[in-house]
């Protein structure tokens, strides 16, 4: 089970600014370990962000994204107290969803 994400969501003018830190190895599949064996690829493929159940961001990611990725974006239509939920799915089928309240 992956570690929880760290999500901050706050008002920035009339938009909501969301900042997300995800805990993930993001292995590219091209690196080798000390024995010379290829380390299998393991990376986040899909990220979705929802506001009160409605998808506001949907992204396809690949192995070029760094380890422990940081994602920041803004969307319109949110207000303090609303919930923002983020879900990622990786290439091994692991999944993690976390939620934050807009402040």
């Amino acid at each position, binding site marked *: 089970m992956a*570690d*929880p994400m*760290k999500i901050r969501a706050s008002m920035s003018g009339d938009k909501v600014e969301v*900042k997300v*830190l995800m*805990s993930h*190895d993001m292995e590219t599949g091209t690196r080798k370990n000390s024995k010379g064996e290829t380390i299998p690829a393991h990376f986040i493929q899909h990220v979705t962000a929802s506001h009160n159940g409605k998808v506001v961001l949907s992204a396809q990611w690949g192995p070029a994204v760094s*380890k422990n990725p940081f994602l*920041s974006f803004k969307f319109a239509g949110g207000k303090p107290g609303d919930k923002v939920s983020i879900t990622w799915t990786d290439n091994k089928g692991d999944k993690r969803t976390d939620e934050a309240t807009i402040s």
Partner: protein
Amino acid sequence: MNRTWEAAARAACAALFLAAGGALAQERTAVEEIERYRQALADGNPAELWEARGEALWKQKAGPKNASLEKCDLGLGPGVVKGAYAELPRYFADSGKVEDLESRLVTCRMTLQGLTAAEAKKDPFGGSGKKVVNDALVAFITAESRGHVMNVKTDHPKEAEAFEIGKTIFFHRGGPYDFACATCHAVDNIRIRLQDLPNLTKKADAQRAYTSWPAYRVSQGEVRTFQWRLEDCFRQQRFPHLEFTSEASVALTLFLAKNANGAPFNAPAIKR
């Protein structure tokens, strides 16, 4: 006539502007570019993930005694975490030793959780696919001292002794390279590869360096603790291996920490 003057004045202004622009670009040295890079990253410092994991580990029951670390005395009383790191290392009467944060955590994991010394010192530093307890706890505890002014004391004779030992190690030359910490860290404007090295004999540099550790190393994808920092400095000097939480490592930490007194602590930071 007027028009010609105007055009000439405009051309002159443009030339001045270009010259100023060129000078500005030159003044922005590699050091400043690295600083800009750090600032750009600071907003999403993944060390926060370690902080969250460390807080959970601090409260989690573990070890043969099935106890959490919440009663661990970091110097300000059992369980007081806020501001504790700004006064470490210090002398602890219960163990009779001067301890830095990481050796104190070893002590607490032994006394409170019932681990053996070998178990508590095993795997202190994380790596690819390897999550460890020590660096997460350090990230959590140091983050609780962010903004607290460094205030390391040498009132106790053992603390004063450790300071002197640390100072001696800092200036001691040895090993196959005939190096000392001071070889790189007592001179201005010395670099290893791209990185500028702090001159630790100068107050401002010593403060800036000490208060920015532990740090998330982007190139390694890990939070690196101060014990790791010293161990790696020893490796780079080709010194004998610096044993985790050894007396020498704690003494050197106390020497460097005391030299940072007066500056607000500002870590876990983020580094290239």
